């Protein structure tokens, strides 16, 4: 059940390692929150706070299990995949020029992981980002690290 009004997490406007919503938990991989600071360093200083609040709204919507448009949550690249099983794709929480690459965990039920954030205006996916997401995915989904 929802309660009308702003919750504390929103007025606090800080990215947390873990955001628990009505349907999912969204977790930041190690170093992901630091990568957000780097990603927003490319936008004018006065707007950085706004980008953080906007990203928090996207995380909250994702955690609450509400639909997000393909515009704001596009499919990006392939995850490494487990042996004998088809590869899955990862997505990006997008507020141009900031993107947070994430995937839905198969190891942990109802958990999304945000691998890292980048600053990018173009749509094409950089192979370095695919590698970075893949490494985080392997650490968590295969090796069993917590985040």
């Amino acid at each position, binding site marked *: 059940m929802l309660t009308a009004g*702003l919750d504390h997490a929103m*007025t606090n406007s800080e990215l947390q390692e873990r955001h628990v919503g009505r349907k999912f938990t969204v977790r930041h991989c190690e170093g992901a929150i630091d990568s957000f600071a780097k990603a927003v360093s490319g936008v004018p200083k006065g707007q950085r706070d*706004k980008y953080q*609040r*906007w990203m928090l*709204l996207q995380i909250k919507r994702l955690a609450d299990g509400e639909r997000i*448009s393909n515009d*704001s949550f596009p499919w990006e690249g392939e995850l490494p995949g487990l042996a004998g099983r088809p590869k899955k794709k990862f997505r990006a929480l997008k507020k141009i020029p900031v993107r947070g690459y994430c995937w839905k965990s198969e190891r942990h039920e109802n958990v999304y992981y945000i691998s890292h954030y980048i600053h990018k205006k173009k749509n094409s996916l950089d192979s370095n980002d695919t590698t970075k997401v893949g490494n985080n995915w392997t650490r968590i989904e295969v090796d069993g690290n917590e985040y």
Partner: protein
Amino acid sequence: MNTECSEVSKARKKLVAREELIYNLTEDLLVLLEDRGMTKAELAKALGKSRSYVTQLLSGSRNMTLGTLSDICCELNAKPIVRILPNGAKVLTYEQDPVWLKEKIPNIKLISSNDFSYHDNDEPIEYRHLPRVVGS
């Protein structure tokens, strides 16, 4: 000092509330646009506006009047419903089963076929039916 802090906190709360409303509204419209298989360019043409105008509206960078919201919804064959709820009011979402609600809440009041609300100890509780669009 305390007054100053309280003013800053109030201003921040207002800002966050405003951004939350804009983000969720524009996101709902983008989802509906995709469900209708319509592009922003097609919506712009239907509204008689430029594509950049629609892009700005749907990215939240341009303010939208209630009239424009109504026009967009009209083009998307949808109806916007604006509700003002007092802070702390309980809102039951579409995940909750209306049949279950009727069993659990005997004094539930039917407003329309998909919409329920009731008051419990003077605390307004509403059932908010969110459109789940399948096809057009």
